[in-house]
Every structure is written in C-alpha cells, then in structure tokens.
C-alpha cells in the first residue's frame, strides 16, 4: 500500500502560471518584434532623410539626369540606368552559369567530388566584396582595358554595347564583379532544387530512353522552375544592392548610354561615394532619395522571392 496520502496526487484547482515560460516567451517575442521594428524604422528613417529631396523634385527625380552640386539639381535617371544595366548583364552571365553548376553538382559530378566542389563554389561567396572590388580595379580592370575591350571593340564595335573607348573602369568590370558575387548564391539554391527532384521522376524519364540532359531539360528544370525564378530574383536583389565592389570598379561618372566601356554609376555606388562628402543639404537628401529608391527595389525583389517560395511550399505540401 502506498505510504503517501491521496491528497499528494490531487491536481491543483487552477493551472499554475509558469513564470519561466512567460518570461522566455516575452523575451523571445520582444526579440522577434525588434526585427519588425527595425525594418519599419529603416524605411521611415531613410525616407525621412530623403524628404527634402522628395518634396523638391518629386517623381521627376526618376527621369532627370542632372547631377550638379553647383546648381543644386539632382536626378536619378543615369543611376537607375546604371543599376539596371549592371544587374541585367550580371544576371545574363550568372544565371546560365549557376544553373549549369547546379546541374553539375546535382547530377553530373562524381559523388566524391560533390562536397569539395560545392564548398569551393560557396567559398566564392565568402570573399568580402571590398576584396573583390580591389581585385577588380587593380587586376581585372587593367586586363580588360588592355586585352578584352580592344578585342571586342575591334571585332564587334558596331554593336552599341562594345562601342566606346576601352577603359579600366566602367560597366563591364562592374558587371563581371557582380557576376562573381551572384553565381555562388544562385547556384547553391539551384543545386538544392535539383537534388529535391524525386528520383522516381528522373528514373521515369531515363527509362523512356532520354539522355541525362533531356531529363534535366524536360523533367527536372520544369519541376523546379518556380524555385529557379525565386533564386534569380534573389540574385537580382544582391546585384542591385551591392555598393562597395561596384563603386570600386565602375568609375563614378553617371551616364545613360549603351557602351559597356567607360565610367558609369549605379544607385548603390553613388550613395557610397557621395553621401559623406555631400556639399549641400539638398545633395545629401537627394542621395538619401536614391537610397529610398534602392530600398523600394530591394523590398520588392525580396518580397516577391519570398512569396514565390511560399507558394511552392504550399503546392508541395498539398500533394
């Protein structure tokens, strides 16, 4: 017989509030809330600093290519153009390369090589952007100016992209540096995506007599196409937002023009170069306006990528 009284086992009438639980829930919840607060605060603060320029120039800021500290007139058009061109070409080079690397790591590479090669590609992402920019301006730039750009100019100069005078700065070195930065990001996502294609599906295609490439092209890539789009958008966001390496390699003279050679500028790069040394308050505010535009673009890109991923997860879960 038990020596303990029955009352020992009686349940308390009300559940005891566990202070520890409440405290932990409170602290962690506060930390999570901080994220939201910081996000909103960033949007607010940047817009606030831009408010003078916004009220002075309005939306015309987006189409004007003035940038004159003497007359205190500023416009973002050349910079938006520079951002668009560098991001576009960076993606143009990086996306096929990244999908190819993803395919290589997922299907083609011998099993033992997959880890090391994957690690090496990711190591590219670990190089600080300022180091990449340093290499870009002191090594790659001169190389492009001496060997690559003259070649392109001589043979393909009739294409507007390759017109202009070879230079060691400009859109081309900036695009290449951005490509180097985007490839590890997009390729590691692609690799995960291809790994996630059910092997049953792959086997089904091969058993019908397809080559490995045909299987990838008509079964695997379509299967994960949504994810690839999301990865590309993330790469785009990275390219648009990179300030340091771009400012080191691009030259800094804003212009709108088709030539890939010669100095240009982007939104992020101009912010990095001119914000501190802004001559007038309006100039500083205009640069903050640039930052606002950049913020809007990056928010749009990151949110759409996140929504695509959510939609994919829902579809997979529903099956």
């Amino acid at each position, binding site marked *: 017989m038990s020596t303990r009284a029955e009352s020992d086992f009686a349940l308390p009438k009300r559940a005891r509030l566990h202070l520890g639980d409440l405290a932990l829930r409170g602290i962690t919840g506060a930390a999570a809330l901080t994220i939201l607060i910081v996000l909103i605060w960033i949007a607010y603060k940047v817009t606030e600093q831009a408010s003078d320029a916004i009220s002075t120039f309005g939306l015309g800021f987006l189409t004007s290519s003035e940038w004159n500290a003497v007359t205190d007139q500023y416009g973002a058009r050349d910079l938006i153009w520079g951002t668009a061109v560098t991001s576009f070409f960076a993606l143009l080079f990086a996306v096929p390369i990244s999908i190819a690397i993803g395919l290589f790591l997922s299907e083609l590479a*011998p*099993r033992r090589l997959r880890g090391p090669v994957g690690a090496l590609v990711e190591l590219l992402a670990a190089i600080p952007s300022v180091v990449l920019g340093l290499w870009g301006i002191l090594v790659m730039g001169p190389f492009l100016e001496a060997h690559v750009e003259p070649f392109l100019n001589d043979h393909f100069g009739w294409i507007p992209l390759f017109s202009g005078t070879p230079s060691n700065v400009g859109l081309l070195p900036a695009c290449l540096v951005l490509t180097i930065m985007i490839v590890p990001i997009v390729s590691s996502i692609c690799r995960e995506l291809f790994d996630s294609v*059910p092997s*049953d*599906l792959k*086997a*089904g*295609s*091969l*058993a*019908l*007599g*397809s*080559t490995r490439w*045909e299987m990838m092209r*008509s*079964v695997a890539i*379509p*299967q994960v196409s949504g994810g690839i789009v999301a990865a590309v958008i993330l790469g785009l966001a990275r390219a648009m937002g990179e300030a340091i390496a771009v400012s080191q390699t691009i030259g800094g003279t804003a212009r709108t023009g088709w030539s890939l050679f010669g100095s240009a500028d982007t939104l992020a790069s101009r912010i990095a170069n001119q914000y501190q040394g802004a001559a007038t308050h309006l100039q500083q505010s205009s640069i903050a306006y640039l930052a606002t535009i950049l913020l809007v673009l990056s928010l749009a890109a990151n949110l759409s990528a996140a929504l695509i991923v959510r939609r994919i997860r829902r579809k997979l879960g529903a*099956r």
Partner: protein
Amino acid sequence: MTDSESRSERDATGGESADVVLARSQAQMAEIAAQHGAAPQEGKPVVLGLENVAVSYSGHEAVRGVDMNIHKTLVTAFIGPSGCGKTTLLRSLNRMNDLIPGAEVRGKITYHGHDLNATGVDPVEVRRRIGMVFQRPNPFPKSIFDNVAYGLRLHGMKDNLNDRVEQALRQSGLWDEVHKRLKSSALSLSGGQQQRLCIARALAIEPDVVLMDEPASALDPIATQRIEDLVAELKNDYTIVIVTHNMQQAARIADMTAFFSVDVAESGARCGILVEHAPTVQLFTRPSDERTEAYVTGRFG
C-alpha cells in the same frame, strides 16, 4: 500471403491439417497456370539471353548465377522472397543499373544475340527498345497527353502524334476514362489510372520488351486485376518480364516463371540466386528443386 491466398485458405479450412490446405492451394495455382501451356517457349525466338549473369553493388553481390532465356511474346515472371535480387536483375535488362554508382554487371546479357553491355552500346538506345514500368506510378507533372507524348517527342515519332497517343492509351485501357480530359494534369488521376498511364507512356514508343517491377503492388485489388488483364492482352505484341511477390499473380499471368532464392554464405553475406526457370505450370506441379517446392507450397516465404 495475399488476400486471395488467405481467402482460399479459409475456404479450404474445415478442421483439415495445414499440409492438406497448402497442397490444395498449390493445386489450385497449378490449375490456373495450366492455361499457359506446358511448353509455351517452343517455337518462340529468344529475345534476351542471360549467361552466368551476376550483379553487384560496390563489391557486394546482389544476385548471381543467372542463366536463362526470355522468349518473344511471352510473359516471364520473376518470383521469390524479398532480397533475392529480382528487381536488381530486372534493372540490368535495360541498363538502369548504370545509374547507380558502384553497380557492376558480370556475365553476358544478349539482346537478339547482341551483347547489351558491349562498349559502344548506348543505354539510351537500349531503353528505347526495352521499356520499364515502376513499382510506384511516376507520371510527370504534366498533362495526360504530354506524359504519353513525352517519349514520342523524344524519339522523333511526332507524325500523327494524336493518333499515337490515342493508340497507346487504348492499349493500356485508359482511353475511355481520359479521352475527354487529355489536357488535365496526370496527377489528378487515381493510383491505378496513373499506373496505366505510365504503361501507356512506355508503350507509346513501341518497345520490343516491357519490364515491369511489381507494377500492381502499390494498387488496390481491383486496380491490380485490371493491370493483370492488361498484361494478358499486351503479351500478344510485347515480350514482358514482370517481377512479382505474389505467386498467384504469376500463376495467373505468366507463361514462364523464374524462381529466385537467397543464398546465405558463412560470412552472413546474402546473395540472390536463380533456382529454377521453367514453364509456370511445371513450377507449380513438378518443381525440380526442393527450394522451389517449399516456396510454392507456402512452407516458407
């Protein structure tokens, strides 16, 4: 034991001993198998010839000592307990084992007299002629039409695409159920329908041989019945090799049956071996090996 086997067991029970019950079900299976004839292989040319074939994965032998001939327009079943290498052997018939790193095929597999594994033989060409249906239906996430058309487009058989697709779907008995919604997703079909779609997909490219790896094991009994009926029809045009864990199924649909068993070495290593290959009715009435007899009478496995 499958549902049908235990059903016939229960029918037979009435206080009789297990041996009598077992003998009775074996007799029933022999009766069913008799429909295929005592020597169905006579007069049929050999499509696939296996000579002392062994398959190993990274050094571990999965199956060995396989000598057999697979004859044209017959259904050959591979039966035996699990782990005896039936699926492994099946996959080497269309070079699907190439996809597994460390897989090695020794011995000789000939297709119409030509070595399947000779250097210079492209697995892609092998698989066009020797198709495969998998254990779990694996339709592509495309429309029903595009699933069947996939192989046709691949191999440039695009003339009369619509007719070819219809023909394949009719052959697999799916046409009536889907002809009004060919553009809808293949994934909206039931399991049994998806499997018949996979069969249509394989038949569309007009293979010579169709390999089936337990095609009905993931399906309910009614869908299973339909697949079995389908196999019986298809054998008029195709050579079929089917792996099954269900002896009654083999009795019902296979002309020839190969029984595999597991050989355990002193080291504990398990390897599949071919025990006996004969006309199905012979395997069930007069098996020449006692292991076969033990299996078909249900004394083990």
